[in-house]
């Protein structure tokens, strides 16, 4: 299988940081705030691999560092330390050693990000089609008709009525905004997609439709995805492999079925038990 992403020892500390930050935080200490210097250890030593067409789930409670990890990979935040290699066809990109222009270029061309809050992913002052156009224009497409066709395509693919493509996304329902956001993320056919709590806050039928859409995209386009969620249902449905995070550490990782059926860590056991 082709590797898409390799992450090694990714760490992110908010605050000044000190020598004992990592030793005094984590699930064993039941905190991610360093008692010595007050820094927040949002993520520490997160390592994983992701392969083509695979969906990796990152599960954990609020504040466990799952979103932070993904935001670092999408260059929304700079990690404190760690390494990530993105394999793009024949090329390898050492993500955190690129300059900001290269990072932005990569994020625009090769990554897609869907946020929990459509406010973050969409520009509400321009039309749904314009939002998709923005991403295409960022990647260097300069043909108006081409952009229109592609936007129409993507919106019908994500089941947004194409008649509404010239409307402002603020007139849309939450589910539709999320679909537009997914369409925007898919605009450049990225080989890697980050989904950060995409179904949280949507009603159940809309959730189901969005999850269907994500699975379809994975099947059709063989896109590798990282799905961040605290919803066990989403993990069970989408993810082949799963990481469980707590207080910034990965406490358990493996095949999703294994983790859900036979959780090893006490926290995972509690999590699974509480959901069932």
């Amino acid at each position, binding site marked *: 299988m082709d590797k898409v992403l390799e992450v090694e020892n990714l760490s992110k500390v908010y605050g000044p940081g000190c020598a004992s930050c990592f030793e005094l935080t984590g699930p064993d200490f039941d905190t991610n705030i360093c008692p010595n210097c007050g820094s927040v250890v949002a993520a520490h030593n997160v390592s994983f691999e992701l392969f083509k067409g695979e969906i990796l789930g990152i599960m954990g409670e609020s504040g466990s560092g799952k979103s932070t990890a993904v935001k670092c990979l999408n260059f929304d935040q700079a990690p404190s330390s760690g390494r990530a290699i993105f394999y793009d066809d024949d090329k390898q990109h050492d993500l955190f050693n690129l300059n900001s222009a290269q990072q932005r270029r990569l994020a625009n061309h090769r990554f897609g990000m869907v946020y929990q809050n459509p406010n973050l992913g969409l520009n509400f002052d321009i039309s749904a*089609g314009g939002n998709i156009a923005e991403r295409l*224009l960022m990647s260097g497409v300069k*043909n*108006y008709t081409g952009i229109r066709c592609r936007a129409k395509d993507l919106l019908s693919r994500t089941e947004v009525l194409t008649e509404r493509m010239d409307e402002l996304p603020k007139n849309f329902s939450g589910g539709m905004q999320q679909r537009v956001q997914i369409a925007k993320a898919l605009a450049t056919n990225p080989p890697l997609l980050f989904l950060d709590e995409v179904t949280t806050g949507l009603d159940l039928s809309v959730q189901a439709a969005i999850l269907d859409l994500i699975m379809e995209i994975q099947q059709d386009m063989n896109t590798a995805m990282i799905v961040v969620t605290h919803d066990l249902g989403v993990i069970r449905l989408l993810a082949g492999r799963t990481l469980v995070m707590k207080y910034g550490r990965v406490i358990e990782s493996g095949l999703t079925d294994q983790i859900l059926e036979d959780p090893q860590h006490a926290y995972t056991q509690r999590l699974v038990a509480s959901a069932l």
Partner: protein
Amino acid sequence: MSESYPFGFLDEYAKKEVRRSALKAVAIPGYQVPYSSREMPMGRGFGTGGLQLTLSLLGKGETLKVIDQGSDDSVNAVNLRSFIEMTCAGINTTTKTDEADFIQSRHRIPEKALREDQLIVLQVPYPDPLVIVEPSEDKRKMLHGEGDYSRLLVKLYEDIVKFDEITISHRYPTRINGHYVIDPSPIPRWDVPRLHQSPALILLGAGREKKIYAVPPYTDAEPLAFDDVPFRTEDFIDESGQRRSCKRCACTTSFLDEFVDSNTGEKVYQCSDADWCDEYVSTAPQACEVING
């Protein structure tokens, strides 16, 4: 006044700074060079940026032309000209584009093609084209640095979606030398192609926003557009498909101003460039329909 103030009103250090900024602007085509922008005896926003450039660069014996919207006689042009005459002893002024070494202009580039030995200074109210899409100057600088103008193109996209054409009438974002996009000051679209490969040096000064930038001679200036929706200038075609002509000189190749005749209530068109119109009237008197003498 010429005795109590140094030549060019500004002190030597201020002039030196403006010159250095202008040199830097020429060296990095389209880059907005920050400068201190001294206090002038007129309100910021009334052409202080262009004025400071003119006062710093103009030398004795040179001939200056000042225009405002193409006219040598409007208030802004007249006042700036008399201020420069008052503070720069030994310069000449003219209204003829041909005779001028140095042209300061608000919102127009003369119709007549400029030469290598001429220089034009444009007064700029808003130097940064990205200001409409990004409020933070920090982020704008990053976008400029990376040459990322996709958000301006989104603006054009939205325009075409809503109105079937790009509706920017002036301040059309223009890419200089393949990298920086500038706001070419409120010149009409008509004048934008004149920036491209211009033999004359074009300097742009924003006094209130404290920026100087330049389109050096023979530099590419490319208005932003889509491959299949090209940039176009005003065509001045009337309902019957005829190109409108100037009421005064009958010219059909110039940029026209529209105004309402106060006697008849009719819409009247006349060359915006007064010098061009005068010359056309004198060379083609047979076509002349002089209004108001």
